[in-house]
């Protein structure tokens, strides 16, 4: 059991770092609103795939990293990612046996919850972003989910 968790830490950290970089890679302004929350998807994947390896700690610290790199109030993404990460961990046994479509819909719900927490903290700290563009990311993220899981499974099986 100890060996198992230790083996999984490395791809976990690497994939999270890669997803963090993708979160700030410059995109053309048109595509920018469609940028999915890569790091959130990766955290969900690990919460579902190996919840024993500390998925929630990963969620919290990934969120903190997003806060720093996006330059928003500290704890915003950490809170959103912790709550939805716990939700994903709670749903993991069901998600694994879902069809692809149901998986996508579940992930869409999770991502929307994540955006909602961000939206709420934005409003509570006094700098709300009210454009509808921010609700596009969950759509794109849910569409990306099957691709990401199959890719991560390949890497993980090695």
């Amino acid at each position, binding site marked *: 059991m*100890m060996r198992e*968790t230790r083996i999984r830490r490395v791809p976990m950290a690497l994939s999270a*770092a890669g997803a*963090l*970089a993708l979160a*700030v*890679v*410059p*995109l053309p*302004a048109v595509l*920018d*609103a469609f*940028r999915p929350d890569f790091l959130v998807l990766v955290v969900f994947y690990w919460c579902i795939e190996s*919840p*024993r*390896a*500390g998925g*929630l*700690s990963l*969620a*919290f610290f990934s*969120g*903190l*990293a997003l806060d*720093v*790199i*996006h*330059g*928003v*109030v*500290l*704890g*915003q993404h*950490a*809170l959103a990612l*912790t*709550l939805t*990460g*716990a939700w994903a*961990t*709670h749903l993991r046994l069901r998600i694994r046996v879902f069809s692809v479509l149901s998986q996508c819909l579940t992930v869409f719900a999770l991502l929307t919850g994540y955006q909602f927490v961000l939206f709420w*903290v934005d409003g*509570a*700290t006094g*700098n709300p*972003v009210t*454009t509808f*563009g*921010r609700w596009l990311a969950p759509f794109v993220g849910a569409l990306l989910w099957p691709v990401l899981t199959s890719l991560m499974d390949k890497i993980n099986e090695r």
Partner: protein
Amino acid sequence: MVAFRSTDASGRITGLLFRCVLYSLLALALIIVDKRYDHLGRIRRLLSVAAYPVQVAVASPFQGWNWFRDSVTTRDVLRADKAKLEAELRLAQFRLQRYEALEAETQRLRALRENTESVTDRFVIGDVMNVDLDAFRERVLVDKGAGDGIYVGQAVLDSGGVFGQVARVGQLTSEVILVSDAAHAIPVQINRNGLRTIAVGTGESNRLKLPYLPTSADVIAGDLLVTSGLGGGFPAGYPVGTIAEVKRDPSQSLADVDVKPAAALDRSKELLFVWLKPQAAELLPPPKPAAVPKK
């Protein structure tokens, strides 16, 4: 390792709710402390150093590509560039001759008023890093930080005019909020008649607006807007934009004025950080004298 051993004997996950509540409370506490109190500035500055490698890793392929493109440009392109730059330089030098005469004249006039401070400001040039901060806010990351003496609220210009101001300072990087951000406002005046007002960002990088001008205000399309220097944040006299359109609705008391920013907000790669000469002595060091009377 104890913290991660979260399964009971049958392999089920335990304490999920407990850890979720724990981390959520921690995050909430962070949000409140960061928002209400200013204690996290130092921690954030250190964390931004940790984020720096990621930002550099993201930005470097683009810099590498630019370098590659620069090194394989043809002779013809370089010659055309050189000709263009020489023409621009000639024009700039021509203007500068007049500028020096004008500065000397200003010095003389100020000397008359026993105020001999120079009108020129100190500059530091920073490069915009190829990092997208947030799709819905008009902000950029620049590779100059507290280590270079950058401070929060500092005015930032580009070659065209006022670009924005420093919103947050890290040790190696700083975040600049553009004049076009919806949360940004800048005191301006119309160059033609000196009418003072406030230019507010719209969230679109090619448009500002003047929401506080009455319908009867003397403003026409094409007017140049410059900083008024009121409020002390920005140096006076730098171009902010030109009036693009004035819509006057007789039933409204305020006019609807659109401004085209003078700075290339969506294209500039090199920014000037400005130190205000007259106020610099007051702004740069933290206001210590205020603490003295408390003793």
